[in-house]
Structures are given as C-alpha cells and as structure tokens.
C-alpha cells in the first residue's frame, strides 16, 4: 500500500470528487442477474426509471441492454417490467446455464 497517499496529504474529511461510483465495479455481488429478452420489450423504460444503480443502458430512448459491471441483481427491473404474458426482463441464477452464455 506504499503507493497510496498518507493521511497528511489526503483532502480533509473523506471528501472526493463526485461520480467515482462508476469506477467501482459492484456487479460481482450478484447472486441473480436480470436477463433481457429484446423481442418482448416494449421500451416503456419502467426498468430504467426503477433501477437504483443506473444499470439499464438506454440509447435514443430505447432500452439496449444491462450494465452487468454495476447491476447488483436486486430484481426491481424484472419486478416492474409490465410486459405480459412473459416479462421482457427475468431474473436467472448468476451461475445458471441460461446466463453463462450471455
């Protein structure tokens, strides 16, 4: 740890520049992951607005995928997905057969 700064050169009071959470990859906490089925998706973006970790990737107002580097697998997106009869987002075991290929 010798390359890290000592306490005398750190900014006062645990203050750092904003936005560094993106650099901290938290996706390996997951036990389940949301799997997206594009063919079912209606692009309502309920998943995007509900995601607490900004892990729904949207381009040109369309859902385009999931940021697995930061998704913690909370399942809110799959819960909120309104598509019937089969949801466009389903939670699968992190190490299950269906997710390994993704």
């Amino acid at each position: 740890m010798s390359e890290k700064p000592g306490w005398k050169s750190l900014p006062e009071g645990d203050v750092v520049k904003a936005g560094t959470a993106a650099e901290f990859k938290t996706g390996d906490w997951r036990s389940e992951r949301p799997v997206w089925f594009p063919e079912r998706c209606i692009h309502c973006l309920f998943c995007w607005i509900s995601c607490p970790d900004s892990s729904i990737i949207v381009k040109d107002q369309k859902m385009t995928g999931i940021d697995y580097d930061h998704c913690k697998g909370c399942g809110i997106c799959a819960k909120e997905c309104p598509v019937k009869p089969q949801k466009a987002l389903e939670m699968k075991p992190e190490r299950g057969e269906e997710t390994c290929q993704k």
Partner: protein
Amino acid sequence: MSKIVAKTGNEAMAEAMRQINPDVVAAYPITPATEIVMIFAKYVADGLVDTNFVAVESEHSAMSACVGASAAGVRVMTGTSSQGLCLMYEILPIAAALRLPIVMCDVNRAISGPINIHCDHSDTMAARDFGWLQIFSENSQEAYDSLIQAIRIAEDPRVHLPTMVTTDGFIISHCLDKIEILDDKDVTAFIGQDRKANNRLLDLKNPTSVGLLDLQDYYFEHRVPVAQAMKDSKKVILEVADEFAKKFGRKYGLIEEYKLADAEVAIVALGSTCGTAKVVIDELRAKGVKAGMLKIRVFRPFPAEEIVKALSNVKALAVLDRSDTWSAQGGQVFTEIRSAFYEAAKKPKITNFIYGLGGREIDLPQLHTVFESLKNIDKQPVVQYLGVRE
C-alpha cells in the same frame, strides 16, 4: 452595550444561539434541554434570527440533518441531553470524521435505566470517544461564554471538529443565575461571518462526494486526522479564550486552578460541583488546611500535560467523577488522569470518588468527607461511591 440579567442556563444558551444566528438548527425536545431549542424556536418564529429551523422526528434525524447542512457549508447548531444524545451516537462520529464544525448545547443528564431526568455526566462521557470537543460549564455564564467561543474554535481550519458545550441538568439548566449578556454586535464581530468554513456540497463547479464507503486501504488515514485535529485544537481553544478575555474580560483555559499553587490536598471536578467545592475549599483554608481544586473545563481535547503540571506538587488527590466506566478502575476523569500521571516523576497519591449519579445531591458535608479521606489516602480504595446507601 453588554447587560447584566438573570437567566437560567437554558435561557443563557438560547440567548447565545440568538446572537450567533446559525443558518440551520435541527433538534428534538428532551428534558432538561428542551427549553434551549424551544426558546430558540420562538426567536425563529418572531423573525429575530435568519435560521432555517428543522423540526425533526428524533435526535438521530436531528444530528443527521445537522451533518447534511454542515457539509453543505453553513453554520449549524443543535441541543440535546441524555437519551437524546444516545440516539445521536450513531451520527456523532460521522460529524467528526467529516470534520464538520457543528456546535451542540448538551445538558448533562443521567442515562436510562432506570429512567431518570436529573444530572450526572454519563451521557456526555459516553460520547467522549466520538471526536467531539467537550467543554464543561460551572454555571450559566460559562455556558454562555463557551458557546460563543465554541463557534470560533470548531470553525477554525486547524480544528474543524464538532463541539459540545455542556451544562449540568437542572442544576445549571433550570436555576436562575446572574449573567452578563454581551452586545449583539460584539458577538457577531467575535464569531465572524465566515459561513463557508466547510463549503462542499454547494460548490457546483467542483462537485464532491462526502462520506463514502472507506475500507481497509483508506479508513485508517481518515481517522488519524481527527486525532491530530483534536491535539491541535488545544492551542486554538487557548487563542480564542485569550481573545475573548481581551475583549470581554472573562478568562478561560483548558483547566482552572483554584487555590492550587500551594495545595497539599486537592480534588479534581468538572461542572456545577466546582462551585460547591470552592466554598468547601474556602472553609478548609480558613482552618489552615492547604486545600485546592483543579477544575476541568475542556475534557476533549484532554489537557493531560496541563493537569500533570498543575497537580505535581499535591500530596493527596481525589478525582470526582459523576459517571462510571464499570471497569472497577474508576470513572472516565479518574482513569484518564491516573494514566496521564504514569510517566510523571512527581505525582500525588490518588483516589476516585464516583458521586451524584441520577442527580443525587452533592453538598458541603460530602465534599468535606472527600477532603477528610485524603488524610488517610493510603487506606482508600481505588474507587468508591460517595453518598450511596449500602
């Protein structure tokens, strides 16, 4: 113009808060501190201050709101006591680690259980390790003066630590005392208008994150600066006290020595008990006993060197604690003083009395008993409970 008025400790602290005119006050009522913020809330309602008053649902929320407001860079105050302080414990060390100069009016009261509303120092002493400066008051005047000084001390860049100024529940908080209130303009000039002491969240050009997850690689480096700031704060406390004395005439230090210069027997105490002890010492002196007292005004930072120096010529010393550590090694004040003396070449024989828990009266005869025991200090146990029925 300053004026002499009759005020309770709570009224005196509320008056100091009005003059300080903090930007944010977040507080929740609790006996015996309720009045401080209740009176202050009236000042807010009457438009006498510019404060944004946040009426929260608990002390936990009160301190959390204080942390948020202080991190945003404004001047923040609150007030509480006992169980209320206990409910703040989770947030108190966060305020210190974030280096936020929050100033608290803390009225010392026993902690439950059994439930009790009267004075002892258990609540404040349990908060001694959270990185807050702790200033004790002997009377309303000291509480008023120290609260004004606390703003300057806490906001000094060499300190940037939260600070609590304490009074003793009911004994000071509710008893009328004759005190000198300073002129509003003098207080404003003394504390200064720098409210950007810690401007962080509101600096939109340089956005920051405050209070992040901090693990094995940085947590330690963020705790040690609190220890350093606490050490450095001694000098600042004395500087601010000197300036206060020059401007307003009343002198304060980390400790106060009362007839200690030639004392052979002495006690150490803090808070309102010191007033009672001064009477006892005067009575003993009239009989030719060389008695004295060391009053601790500032408990954090702990004035170890100053205490050792002031007491090195005393032969027998009794430390009075109004709280216990349950260690069978004495109260907080005693254990720290005994530890401070470990390396000293000259030291008094020393014993501990734990007294006055739950507001149990400490009177002249009891303090005479303490001085009497110092004649036979070799026969005293390390720690004994004064005035308890067996």
